[in-house]
């Protein structure tokens, strides 16, 4: 299959079951809301080293936010609900509560509840105040600029992590341009995040290493400098740069849609192939086949 001059490799992305949550951060100005959002999503590129994956999902207009102030929605993913609850507590406590004027709300209507504000409240040292409004309970924690308002519970739900695309280009410039175009298009979607820097990762990994202590190491099959060195290189002659886009989503459908849009946007001059990363199919619960994605009757993109 080809899109323009780019070959779409007949392979699949191997994605995993994760647990995801949506955190709504509001503040007096969109700059402060964004500052907290950037902080809470920092050092959260991969569960391998960061214990969670996180990213900014969308900017929320003041009229649509829970307290009519500018907001940002953030998605955070971890491998299980308990772990995600801990990450939420740590990150909201350290990155949102600390940021001037912010408030923090659960952004999922359904799911498994984990207690967040109900633990953070102890920071109030007995001066915290609970409020029940409708079906939600909130905590007002006194802080030096007034109060930090946070939901008692946040919902987490089964989600999909590790959807991915590999963009194989003739050089670094063309590959970077294609990756940027893909991430720009994918960021228009909701229910997904791209957890790596600016949505793109260059240090894709394989499972295991020659060093026993490492659980993951460089994806040598896609490193252009190792073509001719390793015997499993996936790179043809003329492919001199590879970039990966990793997608985490609240649903499989959201990840699939992001991949469709990403493939279409990345198929640019200078991109020889678009592929996807997998581990042979034995690890991940979800196999997202590129050809099936693009052949789907729901997809009207150019193929």
């Amino acid at each position, binding site marked *: 299959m080809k899109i323009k001059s780019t070959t779409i490799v007949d392979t699949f992305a191997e994605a995993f079951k994760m647990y995801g949550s949506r955190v709504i951060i509001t503040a007096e100005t969109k700059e402060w809301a964004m500052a907290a959002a950037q902080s809470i999503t920092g050092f959260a590129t991969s569960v391998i080293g960061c214990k969670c994956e996180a990213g900014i999902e969308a900017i929320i207009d003041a009229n649509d936010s829970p*307290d*009519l*102030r500018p907001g940002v929605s953030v998605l955070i993913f971890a491998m299980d609900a308990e772990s995600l609850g801990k990450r939420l507590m740590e990150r909201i406590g350290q990155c949102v509560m600390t940021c001037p004027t912010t408030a923090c709300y659960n952004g999922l209507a359904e799911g498994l509840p984990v207690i967040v504000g109900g633990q953070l409240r102890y920071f109030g040292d007995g001066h915290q105040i609970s*409020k029940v*409004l409708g079906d939600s309970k909130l905590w007002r924690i006194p802080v030096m600029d*007034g109060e930090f308002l946070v939901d008692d519970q946040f919902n987490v739900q089964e989600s999909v992590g590790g959807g991915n695309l590999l963009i194989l280009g003739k050089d670094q410039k063309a590959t970077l341009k294609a990756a940027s175009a893909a991430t720009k298009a994918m960021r228009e979607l909701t229910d997904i995040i791209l957890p790596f820097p600016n949505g793109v990762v260059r240090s894709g990994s394989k499972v295991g290493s020659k060093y026993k202590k490492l659980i993951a190491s460089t994806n040598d099959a896609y490193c252009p400098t190792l073509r001719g060195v390793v015997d499993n290189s996936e790179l043809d002659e003329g492919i001199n740069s590879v970039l990966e886009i990793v997608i985490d989503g609240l649903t499989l459908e959201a990840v699939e849609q992001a991949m469709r849009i990403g493939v279409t946007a990345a198929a640019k001059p200078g991109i020889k192939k678009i592929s996807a990363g997998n581990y042979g199919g034995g690890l991940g619960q979800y196999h997202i086949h590129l050809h099936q994605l693009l052949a789907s009757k729901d997809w009207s993109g150019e193929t």
Partner: protein
Amino acid sequence: MALKLKLHTKPEVPLEADCICPDRMQSLSTTEIENLTVFYGNRQVPLRDFFECSGDFDGEIDVEGDLVDVKHIASAMSFGKITVSGNVGVHTGAAMSGGEIIIEGDASDWVGPEMLGGRITIKGNAGHMVGSGYRGSTIGMQGGEIIVHGNVKNETGHVMRRGLIVVGGNSGDFTGVNMLAGTIIVLGEMGIRSGAGMKRGSIICQTKTELLPTFSKSCDYQPSFLRHYFKYLQSLGLTINDTLMNSPFERWCGDSIELNRGEILLSAGK
């Protein structure tokens, strides 16, 4: 189709009709509903002596007529919906734990006393003791919402423990007296001695008012939780103007004769 009850004979003395409640009418035929007992003064009479019944009960009850002398409507209600196209008497929604009551007219005293959950909406005014505890009770309203679009009289939220009371107009004296916790929002003016004896809880008022000397001022600030509340109130049909939405609030803490953990927030915008 909702069950319809139409008052055909106005009682000369108060009529106690706690049977007008989804919990009591559930799975009864229209005939059985007509034969439910009400207390007319000290006499037991069937509901049909005062109300004309039609339709089938499907969880909703529409009541028509001036029910100002009908007491205990929806007492201990736990589900469903009652809409009254007129006024209601005392003790409406007493100890209700769920469902919704909508009063298109005014309500007498003791709306939602010792309420546990659900919502009561009054489009007109309400009397004394909205969401209060009965005399001698140490705990009043423990959950749910009472939304009064008009004015209320004295002792709203007396010994309130949890829940939300909103007054679209003015409240009388002793608003939130001996309050234990919960939230009272007054979008008009409050009478005197608000929050007297309160331990915890929040009383929020759009206008400044004279407070008891046992309250002391903490600060002027813009509590973000109030914007969250105001958005919720807008969704319930109450008018929150931009001045109030963006207003700073004076925070007064008290009552220092008690725990001093309560708060009265007064809009500094007016």
